[in-house]
């Protein structure tokens, strides 16, 4: 009797471990891909302070991606390191949100993308602080504090751009219209999400949506920006179906490790 219930518990634990691996990996991918995108601004930002700010934020996201990838590797139990997971998976194996892989565009486009994501990250990590998984809760405890700095940065920029010149307003509104269709994906709840939320390990993304919407609507309203009426939504990133942009980005990010596996400098 004892041994049967022990076996059941251990199966259960094994299932959770595999689900948690996919969950942690998806969030690692979000941070890794956006860190890579933001790094593209280094030496090209509008001013020196902003250049430093974007590099710092990219570094925070990369640091978070490293912690999550390292943990994903441990959960998977196949001896894959953070570098293996970052450099030796193909486009279809990445499960990041479509939003984060969208090209930088102009500065307004990058800031709108960042703001939509920062608001989501703030809600996500706040909830994950209560995860029953100690490592994930620990990472969340760090991430939430940094995410608040990031959100204040991108939110301040949206106000400046939205209420700035006619041109800055027009470009920011255009960016919002181009990116809004990728926001619904953040709140799609998969079977994995449901099971992990049920076990107290993860959170159901759908539950984060009302708070996120209130937060972003407030800033858009203050910035004089209109949320598009278009309810068309793109998704697929969490299942590995990406826009054409991810493959091109990965080719650039991974080529050296692919050409010279395990190289260091």
């Amino acid at each position, binding site marked *: 009797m004892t041994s049967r219930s022990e076996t059941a518990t251990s199966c259960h634990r094994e299932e959770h471990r595999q689900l948690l691996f996919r969950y942690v990996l998806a969030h690692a991918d979000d941070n890794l891909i956006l860190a890579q995108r933001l790094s593209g601004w280094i030496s090209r930002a509008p001013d020196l302070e902003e250049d*430093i700010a974007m590099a710092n934020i990219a*570094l925070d996201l990369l*640091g*978070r991606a490293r912690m999550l990838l390292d943990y994903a590797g441990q959960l998977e139990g196949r001896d894959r390191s953070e570098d293996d997971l970052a450099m030796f998976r193909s486009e279809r194996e990445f499960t990041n949100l479509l939003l984060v892989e969208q090209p930088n565009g102009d500065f307004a486009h990058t800031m709108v993308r960042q703001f939509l994501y920062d608001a989501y990250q703030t809600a996500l990590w706040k909830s994950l602080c209560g995860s029953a998984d100690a*490592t994930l809760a*620990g990472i969340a*405890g760090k991430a939430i*504090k940094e995410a608040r*700095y990031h959100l204040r940065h991108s939110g301040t920029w949206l106000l400046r751009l939205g209420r700035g010149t006619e041109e800055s307003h027009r470009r920011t509104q255009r960016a919002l219209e181009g990116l809004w269709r990728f926001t619904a994906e953040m709140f799609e709840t998969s079977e994995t999400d449901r099971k992990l939320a049920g076990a107290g390990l993860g959170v159901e993304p759908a539950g984060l949506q009302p708070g996120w919407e209130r937060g972003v609507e407030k800033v858009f309203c203050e910035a004089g920006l209109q949320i598009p009426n278009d309810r068309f939504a793109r998704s697929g990133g969490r299942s590995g179906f990406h826009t054409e942009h991810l493959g091109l980005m990965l080719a650039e990010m991974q080529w050296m490790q692919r050409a010279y596996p395990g190289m260091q400098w």
Partner: protein
Amino acid sequence: MDATRLSGDAVVTGPPIIKDLVGAVPDPELPWVTIAELGVLRGARISGERAVVEVTPTWSGCPAIDAITDSIRAVLTEAGFGLEQIEIHTTYSPAWTTDDITHDGLRKLAQAGIAPPRRPAEDPQGATRCPLCDSSGVRPVSEFGATPCKALMVCNACLEPFDRFKEL
């Protein structure tokens, strides 16, 4: 993770010798401050023939943590430990906060011209002051500075720019 892993207590435990040895490792970016003063060292002890050290990163994006683990390995090998006898664990919980910096650490930051992080719990009225002329008339330039932990400020009185250690 394994039996030799330390508890998550934010207290440096163990015989004073290894604790002092590892605790004195300097931060690579702020070399006048040690990792014990910064609160990065969570534990150091001897377990049989092994030295077991636990560290916690400050900001997620801070590359100093890699340099710090290298330095810890260097002082321990110099003290006679073989590389295979050194275990360094990274812990994320509880998350590091600027409240983990000791009072000596805060004082050394100020002496080096970096306005220390505020402690609203200890000093609710505490304001950031210029580390050069002590004026409280200061303004932020950017919340992001030369390292992940610092913000850029400027003093309205002496007009000098300075770094502020951000509260986390």
